[in-house]
């Protein structure tokens, strides 16, 4: 089986500054990333701000090109700098953004939000587009009567469902999820994570899940890549990374994550009592 997604030594440099009188400098946002991901699997990318995870998301979703390295989708080489982006490529990969308040056009009805990808990337007639959008609404847990409503009439969780519906309406093989639950409340987060799991089972979707929340990552990922200053400092199966982290940065990250288990609370209270005595 060929991997849905494979990256070989992907790098991305940005040139910043640079005026008439002085050369700018080069920021290596992403350095030599290599990974591959099979159909139906979830790769989590973990990192703090400035780690390059969003740059990677831009490359994977064909928004930005890599400076060097090779990217393969369903076995075919992809280099948008050379070939541009075709409709077929667009249909293979879609993205869901972090903030469902910013990622939906406030003046576009939900039905139009969902039909637009079909309009742009397929030759589907309007009746069929409408039919598919209605199906998709129900699929993500909304109702057909939501078709003619505007984004402001929905809660954050519902908007994230709309964003997910828009992303999967083209039947992509790869879905990039850029912090899809970090703007949501805990209870809504659980619903959206369940929805993503349901959709993955039903459509065999492959996820690249970008997050800084390690408890969510541990719950949803099959494989984990930890990024730090543009480099992958750790890459392996979820169990391997969580049980035996190799890199010092990964261990720092784990140590900094708040722990909500009873033993940790007991230990903290005991330390506090000892300090007060």
């Amino acid at each position: 089986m060929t991997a849905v997604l494979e990256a070989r030594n992907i790098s991305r440099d940005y040139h910043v500054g640079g005026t008439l009188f002085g050369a700018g400098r080069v920021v290596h946002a992403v350095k030599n990333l290599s990974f591959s991901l099979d159909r139906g699997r979830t790769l989590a990318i973990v990192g703090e701000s400035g780690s390059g995870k969003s740059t990677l998301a831009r490359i994977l979703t064909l928004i930005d090109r890599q400076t060097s390295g090779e990217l393969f989708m369903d076995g075919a080489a992809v280099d948008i700098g050379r070939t541009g982006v075709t409709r077929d490529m667009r249909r293979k990969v879609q993205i869901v953004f972090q903030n469902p308040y910013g990622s939906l056009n406030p003046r576009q009805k939900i039905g139009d939000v969902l039909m637009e990808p079909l309009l742009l990337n397929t030759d589907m007639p309007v009746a069929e587009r409408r039919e598919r959008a209605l199906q998709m609404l129900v699929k993500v847990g909304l109702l057909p009567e939501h078709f003619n409503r505007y984004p402001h009439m929905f809660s954050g969780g519902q908007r994230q469902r709309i964003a997910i519906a828009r992303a999967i309406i083209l039947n992509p093989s790869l879905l990039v999820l850029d912090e899809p639950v970090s703007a949501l409340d805990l209870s809504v987060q659980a619903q959206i994570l369940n929805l993503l799991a349901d959709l993955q089972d039903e459509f065999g979707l492959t996820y690249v899940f970008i997050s800084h929340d390690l408890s969510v990552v541990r719950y949803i990922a099959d494989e984990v890549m930890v990024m730090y200053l543009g480099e992958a400092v750790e890459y392996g199966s979820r169990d391997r990374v969580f049980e035996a982290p190799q890199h010092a940065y990964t261990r720092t990250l784990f140590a900094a994550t708040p722990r909500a288990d009873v033993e940790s609370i007991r230990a903290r209270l005991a330390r506090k009592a000892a300090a007060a005595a």
Partner: protein
Amino acid sequence: MHLLEVRNLTVSFDTSVGLFHAVKGIDLHVDAREVLAIVGESGSGKSVAMLSVMGLLPATATVTADSMEFDGRDLLTMSAAQRRKIIGRDVAMIFQEPMTSLNPCFTVGFQIEEVLRFHLGMGRTERRARAVELLRQVGIPEPEQRLHSFPHQMSGGQNQRVMIAMAIACSPKLLIADEPTTALDVTIQKQILDLLVHLQAEHGMGLIMITHNIGVVAETADRVVVQYKGRRMEEAGVLELFTAPKSPYTRALLAALPENATGDRLPTIAGFNPEDLVAQ
């Protein structure tokens, strides 16, 4: 006597579609040298309740309470001028977004010194020395140079440290932190939480942590109040809350944590009517 005691607090907002009750009859108290966490999802009224204590709500808000006492003084009957003397000196607050709560037009040194001038009437050299000391206390390297920095020249974590420095400038008796680490990376979050708890213990302050993050509660709190849609669901010691949650809402909240997941789907919170669940 408690440091802060609020009984039967109700906050409502006058909106175009009638009154909206953000907080519906909440009791809470915090003692000196105690860390109280108020935990709840958005819309639970946790921030509004604390803003009403600070007197920072807009004019459209109506605040009523049977009593609201800080350090033995009644905040409800106090004049606005009297209240301004307490707010910022004896009670200080830190907000979620360090980047937007500092004024971008002034150096951080000026902003810290302003607090000292207004509340303590310190002279110029004294203020400068105290500002340096405060920045050192909150762990900012090279504080003498940093006084001249503008907020945009510092990172989010450092700006939050400056906010904390301003908040503790007058050695407050009570510090209210409203989601102080939500905008920060986890490694920085850890540093800020450690700093807050350290300062709280060192100065013997009362600390109220407003948060939606169960992990932050587990890492910092002595006692916890759980709020949901303006109602108090539960109040318990932190260990008690995690080992034997009394309210069905708290149990559902803890079950929805991904780290507590048992099956391949998470249990979800649905269909709670807060009126049925109010803690007695």
